[in-house]
């Protein structure tokens, strides 16, 4: 008896099948539609069968909360590690079909996983993925987000007077003490970038991620006193209960055993100076954001 329960096979179904299998459309029509869909081939795969459906968007909002919001934030406006999806222009996806592929298969080389790979069962159904896409489309800003600043001037500032490149690298040029920023403009919102410049300690950037470790290392500031009386100041590259790996402000790496240190002080005050408007005007900052966005969305 227990084996009679038909588990609805989900992953294998095509989007069209999936959606219609839940409806009350008579079988014949169902088949006709299926044949029609099959004849159109990729057309059927690229089209969101739920496009514009307000009810689907609502269901998609809830699915989004459960499956996506951890990284992309409530409301899809970006979070600690996922980009703002309310932008009309996205880096990896253009059509609904692209988006379906990205949600299904993930994005290699990024933190975006493929559906069903988080160890929590079989993942979302095709219909649920289309609901999420419908929801995301309903949240997009109407006009493409156009950078408000001047990217060329922002580049000059980044490598010049604003001193960003002393600690940050873009496309292989710049310093090493702070996070590498080549892709930050594509994965973080304008507001998040501005906030991290104006208030760098509010949320420390994430660094090294280990496969089996729950949390990535953060860019914490650290000051240690060594047994031979030296003081080392820098950021933590990694740390466990017994050892710490530090990069100092001269970009030297120190591997230290904690029980051999005379002192060990960590701080959640970022090593990055706080850029107030007196140091960096709103306009200058917009120009830098425009530069980061132009590089990050390439």
């Amino acid at each position, binding site marked *: 008896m227990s084996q009679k329960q038909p588990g609805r096979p989900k992953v294998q179904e095509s989007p069209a099948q999936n959606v219609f299998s839940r409806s009350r459309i008579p079988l014949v029509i169902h088949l006709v539609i299926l044949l029609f869909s099959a004849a159109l081939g990729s057309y059927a795969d690229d089209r969101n069968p739920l496009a514009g459906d307000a009810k689907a968007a609502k269901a998609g909002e809830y699915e989004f909360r459960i499956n996506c919001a951890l990284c992309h934030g409530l409301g899809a406006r970006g979070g600690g590690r996922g980009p703002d999806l309310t932008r009309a222009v996205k880096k990896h996806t253009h059509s609904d079909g692209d988006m379906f592929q990205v949600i299904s298969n993930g994005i290699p080389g990024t933190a975006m996983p493929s559906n069903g790979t988080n160890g929590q*069962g079989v993942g979302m159904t095709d219909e649920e993925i289309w609901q999420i896409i419908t929801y995301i489309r309903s949240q997009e800003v109407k006009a493409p987000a156009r950078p408000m600043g001047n990217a060329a001037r922002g580049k000059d500032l980044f490598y010049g007077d604003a001193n960003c490149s002393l600690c940050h690298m873009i496309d292989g040029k710049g310093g090493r003490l702070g996070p590498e920023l080549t892709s930050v403009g594509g994965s973080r919102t304008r507001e998040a970038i501005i906030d991290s410049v104006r208030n760098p300690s509010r949320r420390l950037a994430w660094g090294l991620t280990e496969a*089996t470790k729950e949390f990535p290392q953060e860019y914490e500031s650290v000051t240690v006193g060594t047994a031979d009386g030296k003081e080392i100041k820098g950021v933590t590259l990694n740390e466990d209960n017994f050892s710490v790996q530090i990069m100092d402000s001269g970009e030297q790496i120190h591997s230290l055993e904690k029980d051999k240190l005379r002192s060990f002080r960590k701080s959640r005050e970022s090593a990055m100076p706080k850029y107030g408007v007196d140091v960096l005007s709103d306009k200058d900052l917009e120009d830098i954001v425009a530069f980061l966005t132009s590089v990050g969305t390439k």
Partner: protein
Amino acid sequence: MSIPDGIAHQPRSGDRLRPTGCPEPAEGAQAVGQRQKARQPRRGERDNCVRAFALLCLLSTAPSVIHAQVTFERLLNSSKEPQNWMTYSGDYSGKRFSSLDQINTTNARAMVAKWVYQTGATGKLETTPLVVDGILYATAQDNRAFALDARTGRPIWMYQRQIPGDIRPCCGRVNRGLAILGDKVFLGTLDAHVIALDAKTGSVVWDVIAADYRTGHSFTVAPLAVKDLVVIGVSGGEYGVRGFIDAYDAATGERKWRFYTVPGPGEVGHDTWEGDSWKVGGAPAWNTGTYDPATNQIFWPTGNPAPSNRGEGRAGDNLYSNSLLALNAESGKMNWYFQFTKHDEHDWDATQVPVIIDAGGKHLIAQANRNGFFYVIDRTTGKLISANAYGKTTWSDAKDSEGRPVPNKNASPTQEGHTVCPGALGTTNFMAPTYDPQAGLFYVTARDQCDIFSTAPQPYEAGHAFYGSAYFPSEEAEPYRGFLKAIDPVTGQVKWKFEHTSPTWSGVLSTAGGLVFSGDAEGNFIAFDAASGKPLWHFQMGGAVYAAPMAFAVDGKEYVAIAAGSAIYAFGLP
């Protein structure tokens, strides 16, 4: 929806597996146990398959009791053979305490790795090995089980049940271990089978289907052997299963009783569910319980009601979710229950090991609960004695007349999101605690983390995740903090705590050597001074710890073992 019921026997045809690449045995070799061994076909083809012959060689050099059957009497009197670790928690009381003291506070600094066994599995390795008479038995992800020479880590047999591609584990394809009784070990699988393997060969002796995996039923728990029964609880609280605890005849696989953790129509407690919500009520039983021979009671804890994070549609206390159940071992009939979190909306499964403690002339059972409180209960009556917070909690500022913490009015998830501590992962979770009767302290892995709970209603659909709300790390800048805490069960106060670099999922072991062992998320295995919490020794294993340690001895030498990354490590003195 129909809730699967009854069991279907699957007679011995199960996927009794060889290591990858081993050819199928000949048709006639489908027989069981010793016969199978006698008929090993086609030598050349099976040369690469790790099989039982090594055992024979091993036995000739092994000391004394090797090969005695693991009788119920031996399990009852496990304290008389501290060299062996014969149940998930080391004994029936759940203490996870070893009376071995060869490794102790004076020499722990000298510990070295003795062997490492790579399981080849990926994901979280949550197993606690068993050791009986020089043989170590353990499990790994994806329905793996194996036996190793406990001195060397060399495999004696390996088993893997082929896994369907569409299984529905909640939280990883994990398994926490085996039970042993007679000449068999017992495994619960991710596709909801209960399987008895011959302890010497790994051959399938019996294989029963407890439930339909496609509706979200699975087993991740280490079963508990009591008398002639194998007791096991189902997982699936994230899929709206109707939870149950089963007992199978260890000899035949015949199901002797099933206790549904959600009462059906006409049963006491049924009225704590709104409408038909009981049919998908959850209350899984996915962690190993304990057994009190004096009263012949099995104590088994239960998990969250379903949907896990939304109370709308299931008004009422939702018995027996998030409860401790006292069941008669023979009949499975309930003597009493205690519900820790009524009408839960934060996924606070009460599935932590309930530890039997005798203190101050009282017969107690203690649990460090996922909801952040440490509960001490009279195990004869089920009456609450004390409940004290042992981590950061914001959900309860008051207690009811029995002393049970009750939720604040504003603790429910909301549309815009509401922050509650602990978060959905809880102050602790599945990681096994330990009670050291010498120090009189209860040690548990704890975390301080708050989550934002935001409603996301979902309709029930068989085999689909059924949460009802979403949770995210709170926006507070404060990072999550992880601890090893020592709790005095008499006062409920935290006597010492050790703060880890980041929260860990490791369980804890205590030993008569005055030591407490645990692991961290960064891959260290650590020996602590049980009295002070000071780390005395550590070893970097190169993979995060999701398992609990255990101790054993072979040839008069003490070992401490733990799973980390994809491997099992054994440590000892040089």
